[in-house]
């Protein structure tokens, strides 16, 4: 028997993920939205590792490595975009980036 059952990790992961989702939907600063996306990714990482332990496989950790790599690249590009956006206009309120409307 495992000291902490896997299911608790999954519940925790779900909570963190939900928090991240709420943050993405509610916040208006794009940088903070990005941070909430990172929060979501980390929640999933936790889930992967917990299940990897549950099934005694190394695959869980493999996935996590790749997720982290991709997240890093994504953050770099995303922040580049945000910097550009700020150069175009003074505010980076995401609600004001709405030129692609009908």
């Amino acid at each position, binding site marked *: 028997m495992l*000291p*902490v059952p*896997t*299911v*608790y*990790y999954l*519940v*925790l992961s779900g*909570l*963190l993920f*939900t*928090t*991240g989702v*709420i*943050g993405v939907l*509610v*916040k*208006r*600063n794009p*940088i*903070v939205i*990005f*941070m*909430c996306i*990172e*929060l979501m990714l*980390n929640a999933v*990482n*936790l889930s992967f*590792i917990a299940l990897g*332990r*549950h099934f*005694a*496989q*190394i*695959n*869980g*950790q*493999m996935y*996590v*490595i*790749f997720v*982290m*790599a*991709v*997240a*890093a*690249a*994504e*953050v*770099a*590009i995303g*922040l*580049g975009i*945000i*910097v550009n956006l*700020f150069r175009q206009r*003074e*505010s*980076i309120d995401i609600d004001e980036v709405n030129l692609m409307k009908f």
Partner: protein
Amino acid sequence: MNWPLIFFAILALLSVGSAILVVANQNPVRSALFLVVNFFVLAVFYFTLGAEFIGAVQIIVYAGAIMVLFLFVIMLLNLGAPEALRERGKLGPAPAIVLALVFLSLLGGVGAIDSGLRPVNPQAATFMATGGTPEKVGLALFSPSLPWLFPFEVTSFLLLIGVVGAIILAKRRI
């Protein structure tokens, strides 16, 4: 006394709390810092789960590189318009209610999730003890017989693209 469980509970509270505070804050710098806290807690979780390498990588990459990048950008943008970065208005009660609802339903669904999972692999405990070492991770990553070599190489390419893209996006003049 199930010390691992108590330890887990404390850490869980910490991580959830810091996550909520990331979302609830109006100041982006504070949000970033709370996120760093969250990452640290997660790294500890990884250590308890036996994934030492991953835990270390989490601290190095996430807390050490990505969050630094975030803070750099916040700092850059702060120079132009300090007030522009603040969030307008506080959060209402709605997100908290939603979160509470989700938490409760997840708690209630613990039994269901548990029964939905396939049974624990008997070697899980030994895995926890020995399976997360850098040696094991390296063997898994670089063995030709396993499927992880190719994605590894492709990921390096992806990172290259990320670098190039970031430079192009952020430069003032090409």
